[in-house]
């Protein structure tokens, strides 16, 4: 994931006036590494939730930095809806193998087969919400006390209020009104049996920070983040990829278009954006100029209601 062909950019920029400056990306990086190490040191069993998206790619990279030259002291878990972009699965497998990380796959299909959840039907069916059950079951099965996620506070209103260490009760629920105060860089990771914490080391990063960091670190990402020609269809003003997982409604016609994906989720609820940005530099420029948030532009799951994310999070969502 880390291209070693050219030396990494200098991590430090010490000014001539000896003021020991640190760029905002390096300050965010240092904060995230501190958080990741705290979790590994204080919570017995941790797991890193990895979707194959850009945020989890950055998170995994930071985890690697945190324990270098040692290996990751926790496994990586993918909650697999079965409705993935094939390019993302390919990327996931290659990356995990390169890193020698242990990969756990928690499958929504298994949850359906076991009768834990009932699949939605119809052309607008999505497995997005079902993931919460699969995730919580896997956390319980493996006895995880901490699960790292790549969520950021700039993504969504409810997330803006969430702690870096976000406590979950025995039912996996988030209680937004009863959150533990979080002061300085002192995190409270004490949990009782059955409870766990979700930990968001990228809380203070914005989408632009993530892309600038990806560019600076020369991280590899799934190719669907870059412009490519693809068969899509239009629904509710958004472009979706044509795939076996999505049924077309009457009147919806597939057509070809240059697109890229700004977020990577389940194929059934992740929209594409029309784009010609084929290089990292192009993408950074596009993100710097955009006037629409990433979830607003690409995620159908947030359009259900004003508090869609808050409600899903209360149920144990990422």
């Amino acid at each position: 994931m880390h291209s070693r062909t050219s030396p990494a950019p200098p991590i430090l920029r010490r000014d001539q006036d000896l003021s020991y400056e640190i760029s905002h990306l390096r300050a965010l990086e240092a904060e995230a590494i501190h958080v990741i190490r705290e979790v590994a040191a204080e919570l017995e069993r941790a797991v890193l939730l990895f979707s194959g998206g850009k945020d989890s790619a950055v998170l995994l990279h930071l985890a690697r930095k945190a324990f270098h030259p040692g290996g990751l002291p926790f496994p990586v878990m993918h909650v697999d809806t079965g409705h993935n972009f094939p390019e993302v699965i390919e990327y996931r497998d290659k990356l995990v193998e390169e890193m020698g990380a242990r990969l756990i796959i928690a499958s929504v299909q298994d949850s359906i087969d076991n009768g834990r959840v009932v699949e939605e039907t119809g052309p607008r069916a999505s497995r997005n919400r079902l993931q919460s059950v699969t995730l919580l079951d896997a956390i319980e099965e493996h006895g995880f006390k901490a699960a790292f996620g790549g969520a950021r506070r700039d993504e969504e209103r409810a997330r803006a209020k969430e702690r870096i260490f976000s406590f979950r009760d025995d039912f996996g629920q988030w209680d937004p009104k009863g959150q533990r105060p979080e002061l300085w860089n002192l995190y409270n990771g004490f949990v009782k049996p059955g409870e766990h914490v979700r930990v968001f080391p990228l809380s203070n990063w914005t989408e632009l920070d993530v892309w600038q960091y990806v560019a600076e670190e020369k991280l590899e990402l799934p190719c669907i983040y870059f412009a490519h020609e693809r068969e899509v269809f239009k629904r509710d003003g958004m472009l979706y990829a044509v795939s076996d997982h999505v049924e077309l409604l009457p009147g919806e016609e597939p057509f070809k278009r240059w697109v890229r994906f700004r977020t990577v989720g389940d194929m059934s609820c992740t929209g594409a954006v029309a784009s010609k940005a084929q290089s990292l530099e192009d993408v950074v420029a596009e993100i710097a100029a955009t006037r629409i948030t990433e979830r607003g532009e690409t995620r159908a799951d947030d359009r259900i209601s004003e508090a869609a994310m808050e409600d899903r999070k209360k149920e144990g969502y990422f």
Partner: protein
Amino acid sequence: MATGAATNGKPTVTRTSELVRFATAGSVDDGKSTLIGRLLFDTKSIFEDQLEHVEETSRRRGDGYVNLALLTDGLRAEREQGITIDVAYRYFHTPRRKFIIADTPGHEQYTRNMVTGASTADLALVLIDARKGVLEQSRRHAFIASLLRIPHLVICVNKMDLVDWDQEVFDRICSDFTGWAAKLEVQDVTFIPISALHGDNVVERSANMPWYEGPSLLYHLEHVHVAADRNLRDARFPVQWVTRPMRDELHDYRGYAGEVASGVFRTGDEVIVLPSGRATRIAGIDTYDGELDEAYPPQSVTLRLEDDVDVSRGDMICRPANRPKEAKDIDAMVCWMSERPLSASGRYRIKHTSRTALAKVDEVVYRMDVNSLHRDQDAASLELNEIGKLRLRLSTPLLVDEYRRNRATGSFILIDESTNDTVGAGMVL
């Protein structure tokens, strides 16, 4: 103009821009949300879909105006009740800097949220309504900012449009505040007359107040010197994690990972490990990106030591001639954060840097009235949102500095042993 691209065309951020955290406290009446909305809007940090959403919600609620408070009030309960309950974090950037705003509610019953937002802030923004002058609430906000040792305080005298842009009003408020603030330890106070609603002196200098010669708020935020606020004198490295790779080629590798709390560490430096007191030297400073010659706050690095000394999580690496205090009893200012009052004979977990111990309350020395700064020495407990001086006895010594000298090694949290809740925020005296 100085803020350049932030207000004119597409914002970009250079990769060497600096991170600045600031806290705001206030209620809707102060115009705090309007001010934040204006900063976000004028730096093009509000996206079209967010604005559409706010417009639509404002319409549905019958607000009669575009209620920018809805941008920051992220929880359903907050939107329903029209109040800010919790700290919300907002982000914006200009070509020079990236800003993190900790937006906190201003009422007394949310003092704990203000303390939380203030704990990591480089700068505090306090709003004063020009028509009302210095109120109890503004004094409370300034007191909390000084208690948490926020190095820079900006007093925005807002609603200048409603006092006819009158310089005398502004001057009177400045002198009232300065007279009172003499009791506080604030190093840097800046007063800016603004109208958040009309944008005067927020991003651009106002033509309505030619008598004001200072910078606009955004210009000040972009230029205030925060790098110098870090403590670079006292080398403190709390060990978070011991790195022992399992691979054969690194069999003998022992690294001590952590974040530099303060001071500067260089390869070859003589250091001691506390509490053992063993002396050694720094053999190397490792990161994934290669070795460094020196490390400074807030970098996360891994130190290697020349001698094979016993070091574990919770230990602190520092310089032999400059050590923190090894304390079994500490006096501290504590803000109580739980609905269950402080128990005067209670026992709590105390988390300080990377070390957790137990603390017993020996004495409630006094409780501070956050409005009058009066000290009540008869107080026996602290209730939610109250601040007081406590004497604590610890199960294991902690390696502490005074908070006023070192925010990183002078701060701690108290955790309730039975509920695991964070119940107190402490600053070592």
